[in-house]
């Protein structure tokens, strides 16, 4: 009997933590609470969420439309909702906003002339790094290979040297 409350409480706490964690990772769950009007279909609602996640609030540029409480973000959400209800495609809605607010409004910038560096710069840098590393490693290896192997004569000389050194050490030990 004494055992029952303990696991029960434990489970409840675990559930609460999981729920909190879920809320952290899915802000859309929170969002549903502040946007009262639902769109007619589940599919539209999903597209709406996707769009407001990917559009930047022009007034508060570190936030997306979903996360901003500023009046302009509310207006733009309303506008996106209206366009969705009119049956516009995601591309058309994006174009509508870009036409008015510029590329700035997109959190996911399109691949075009002035964003090439942004899109491919990091990859180019990584490739450059790999190239430099390869060159350094290869050169290091060939340096090593360039050291000529010992000739038989040299080897015998070396053996003799080592031998005499060992004998010297032995003598020293026996004296102590």
């Amino acid at each position, binding site marked *: 009997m004494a055992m029952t409350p303990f696991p029960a409480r434990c489970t409840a706490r675990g559930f609460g933590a999981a729920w909190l964690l879920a809320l952290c990772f899915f802000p859309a769950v929170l969002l549903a609470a502040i946007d009262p009007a639902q769109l007619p279909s589940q599919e539209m609602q999903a597209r709406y969420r996707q769009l407001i996640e990917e559009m930047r609030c022009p*007034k508060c540029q570190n936030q997306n439309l979903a996360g901003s409480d500023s*009046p302009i973000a509310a*207006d733009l959400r309303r*506008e996106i909702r209206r366009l969705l209800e009119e049956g516009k495609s995601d591309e058309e809605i994006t174009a509508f906003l870009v*036409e*008015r*607010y*510029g590329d*700035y409004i997109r959190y996911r910038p399109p691949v075009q002339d002035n964003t090439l560096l942004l899109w491919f710069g990091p990859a180019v840098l990584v490739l450059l790094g790999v190239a430099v590393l390869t060159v350094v490693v290869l050169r290091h290896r060939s340096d090593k290979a360039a050291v000529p192997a010992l000739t038989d004569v040299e080897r015998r000389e070396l053996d003799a040297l080592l031998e005499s050194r060992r004998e010297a050490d032995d003598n020293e030990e026996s004296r102590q």
Partner: protein
Amino acid sequence: MFNWKLFIPLLVFVALAFFLMKGLERDPGAMPSALLDRSMPEFSLPDLHEPDRQVSEAVFRDGEPALLNVWGTWCPACRVEHPFLMTLAERGVKIVGMDYKDERKAALAWLARLGDPYRVSFEDRDGRLGIDLGVYGAPETYLVDGDGVIRYKHVGVLDERVWRDELGPLYRSLVREAEDN
């Protein structure tokens, strides 16, 4: 022996410093208007003084360059720039006022109390034209030429300095253009 490789880190540093310094000079909030050199969007909105009358983009097509000032009584910065708008109006600049997301009563009281610099005033109660214009706050001021084409946009308070350095010269060149035609 001169080893040029020793200078690579220095070169990298100089390049990096150059770009970082460039970054300091840039205003991260600056958002170029997407509507530059495009015609004023079409609209039909009630006149602020006579709500039964509709104002349309035609007010910008009379051959005279104009400023379109986006304002609202809820916006403290608009209160700050208001006296300078009065000065501009006195100098003969055509200013069109767009009362943005505001109450008509409050707007009329404001104009009665502080003076009315606008040759034409209309209200965009729900902010729809604001979205077509790419407005994201107030005050914002657009420079529109005599054919109704948007030529410049200033975000924030319009004061003597902004007029002297940015809008004024452009406005005067538009006036000259209009006179030549």
